[in-house]
């Protein structure tokens, strides 16, 4: 079992649904995005293409963030999911420097989204489960997955651009998409072997 995701850049419309549904699921503080959408344009007028690149933690098979973690807080768990044990993280941020994909965030403070106006009831509830002074990142929504659901960003994606599943199973939808559509990893030369694949935009 190796959990993975295929993100279809042809289907993705840059709606930020993943970024925001992830935020809603995990109640991440301001400035922290387990899922994020990056927009970049290529070419010159009028042969221009605006590409939307939704990102998250790639749950690398060869994760540099795990290698550098001094406490083992960052670790591989079932299905190859790279996760952080909250209570073991010392907040050294070596993992942030090691991750080539900007997937990790340091949880600086517990200020909410309405500065100077306290925390909303939602924030109070969500922040109670978080620690300050540690690093946070996407965990492939492992709690949802174990409960038989898809990750929040996958379940919600309006364009159905994201497919989650078992990359070890050649018959899984995600494996087939990666194979048939020529899925590519981001910066494969780094040797990180991400388990998130991008399907080409054209």
């Amino acid at each position, binding site marked *: 079992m190796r959990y993975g995701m295929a993100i*279809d850049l*042809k*289907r993705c*419309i*840059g*709606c*930020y*649904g993943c*970024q*925001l*549904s992830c*935020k*809603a*699921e995990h*109640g991440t503080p*301001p*400035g922290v995005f387990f899922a*994020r*959408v990056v*927009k970049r*344009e290529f*070419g*010159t*007028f*009028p042969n*221009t*293409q*605006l*590409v*939307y690149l939704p990102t998250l933690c790639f749950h690398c098979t060869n994760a540099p963030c795990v290698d550098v973690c001094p406490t083992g807080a960052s670790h591989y768990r079932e299905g190859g999911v790279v996760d952080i044990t909250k209570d073991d993280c010392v907040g050294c941020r070596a993992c942030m420097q090691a991750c080539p994909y900007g997937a990790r965030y340091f949880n600086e403070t517990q200020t909410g*989204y*309405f500065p100077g*106006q*306290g925390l*909303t*009831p*939602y*924030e*109070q*509830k*969500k922040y109670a489960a978080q620690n300050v002074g540690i690093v946070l990142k996407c965990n492939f929504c492992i709690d949802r997955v174990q409960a038989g659901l898809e990750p929040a960003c996958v*379940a*919600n*994606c*309006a*364009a*159905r*651009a994201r497919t989650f599943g078992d990359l070890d199973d050649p018959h899984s939808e995600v494996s087939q998409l990666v194979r048939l559509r020529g899925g590519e990893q981001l910066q494969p030369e780094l040797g990180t072997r991400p388990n998130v694949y991008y399907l080409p935009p054209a």
Partner: protein
Amino acid sequence: MTTDQWIASTCGLCYGTCSIRAHVVDDVLVKIEGNPESAIGRGRLCGKGVAGIMTLYDPNRVNVPLRRTNPVKGKGVDPGWREISWDEALDEVTARLTKVHDDDPRKLFIQRTTTNTAIRAPMMMFAAAFGTPNSWAAGGGLHCGNGAHLIGGLYHASWSLVPDFKHCRLAIYFGASKGHGAGHVSCTNMQDAADARARGMRLVVVDPMANFASAKANEWVPIRPGTDAALALAMVDVILNDLGVWDAEYLAQKTNAPYLIGPDGCYVRDAETGKPLVWDAARGHAVRYDTPDGAALALEGAYDVAGVRARPAFVLLREHVRQFSPEWAERISTVPAATIRRLAREFATEAMVGSTIVLDGKRLPYRPVAAIYFRGSQGHKNSVYNCFAIELLNQVVGAADVVGGALGFNPVCYGHPETGKPWYEPKSGPDGLMITGTWVAPHLPYPISDPKHPSTMSLGGLFPLGMFGPTMASSDQEELWTKFGLPYRPEVMLNYGANSLLSVGNSDTVAETLARIPFIVSFDITLTEFSEFADLVLPDASYLEALDSRPNVPFIFNHPAGLGAWSWPVRQPVVPPAGQRRSAAEVLIALVDRLGIREEFNAVANTHLKLDGPHRLEFGTPYRHEEICDRELKSHFGAERGLAWFKEHGVISWPKRVEEVYWRAFLDVRVPVYWEFLIGLNRKAKPIANAAGLDWDDAWYDPLPRWMPCPSHEVQDGAFDLWGFYYRDTLHTNSFTNENPWLDEASRLDPFSYTIALNAATGRRKGLRDGQPVTLESPHGRRVRGRVHLTETVHPECVGIGGCAGHWAKTLPIARGKGVMFNDLLEVDWAHGSPVNLNLDTCVKLRIAP
């Protein structure tokens, strides 16, 4: 003890009204997801929808009724709010409204936001019961509906259209982002459009900017703003005159193309019945259009009929478009003539005129092409002809509401299998042209009512093709009202949410008009720029705290088109309203009783909501909002499926039928490719206008479309070398969601959301750096400031500004000072509106202020 529940309801962050499930733990909303049991959204939401938690819990929400203490009203002037009780508030509203009602009910001016569609029915019913015709939706003359809804209604019995995503092979979008960033049913369309893309549907997007739809298109066709009619007319010319392609059968049977037109441009009519005549080639003489067995109707030729030389409308159309050559269109639109020819050829070829397909055992026409238009192309002075010209592309190849073509939003419904309700279909009206069969929201572009001396603030009576006119907030409103001798002036304004300061045009003009209104009551969830002009603010329950039996204007507006399922969802509170917030619908009904207009209201409700049998309201009985909702649901879905059933189940769904979706082949109605009715309209309207001293140009009332320049195209001063245009941001609903901090944060990450998009080469030529603050200035001296984003995705002559941002209210701390308020550049006056449908122009000539 913890409580944990999922409550089915409806999103209200844009008019898409996707069905949601709200996860509530210990009375706190912790997550909003899509409801997979509903066809509306199919379990998936856009980014705004999931961010609704932050709108619900915004600490800047209004919690108590507020009374103004500062009599001075103005932009940025603190009203000096004083908290009052609901009783006090309602007493004052009642007193004010009673006075107006006794005096002249038309002095009540009603305005509402489009964002929350659920309030549409209560507000319209209240207005009707009260007796005021003066009501508009925010945005006014800029509103989506003036051109697009009108033409959608005339041709598709619908408010708008989409390509048949399941079967279409080539869609051309003219200024619409359907399925990509905004538009009707945007979430569901996003899924369908992605499927179409995966399937290989070719998408061509005509747009000044390559942002949402164009970013995903196979081809982006950059266009100068406001010139869509020129492009479309040239395409029609190539198709009809160079390629000689048209769907003769469709044109003959489903349009007025065969109607004989006399030298005066009008129908040649049957002397006896007054019905338009057509030439029957088989019989060799003219017959009435509705003669049975009129199979061989001539589309070409010239005939002597009833003493005149008459020609089928189609011939006139073909001749008319001859003048719009691709070379001519290139000069106006900047789209190369070769591209225009190629697009026309591709459209005509891909239409596969004559082909059929079997669906559900029925052989149906198959025309897998669609020309789609919305805000972008309709948002101009030339709104009507822009949409008319584009729609002709669908009409000449017969790609309207057939498999693969342009589909209206559910103009036909044969109801739930058990109750047969709701039931509606278009039917044939005067001169055989289609009358929409839609309901709940009356949408009756046809038959066109006779123009009369205007007695409403919008001057609507004189312009029956207009939905909302700028006069309700224009700089020359007093002048126009005086000209037409409007016998009253607005005395009380009842506003629901709408923030017209940001959505109508430049805020100075809007502010002046608002400041003249003696008393303004506003139902609000936050204090906005509009509140600076309100006398009384009533704290509304937001969409997550309110109840409604009809949250999505079923089904013609924001219910997915195409095959699939019908779904009727409800909205219900997922948490109780905090503070003293009350749902506006309930408050309106309370006002009905206080004002003593209960009989009128109940009568209106019976028709408007199509209440039936035992579920009809008794005239004299008071009903609470909840009871009316319950009766409405029972009325459609049976006594056992009232509000209680819906609260538990959230939504009722049943499958769509082929006859409902591809209805064109099944119903005997015609649509106009030649607008003969405009001639009559002009004849009647012009004298009224002239008598009032209003300039009148007959060119706007030609039965066939042409390109008419926007004011921006007529600016002579070469210093103004840029065209400003507007687009909707996927992250925001007009001005509303800027206050949502999750969305604000995403906008700040986005390169376009809060910036002024300028073509990179143009910017470099002007010595600008990316991110540099600039001031844009219009020829009228209107200015806005913002940061430029240099990009390759914009036409070199243009600057694109997204959203309706640029808030200044201190009561919106998140939204304040973010983004650019495009509308502050727009003039709101007669000269910038359409003299046919009153649509306000949304493009403006600009320069970077030195």
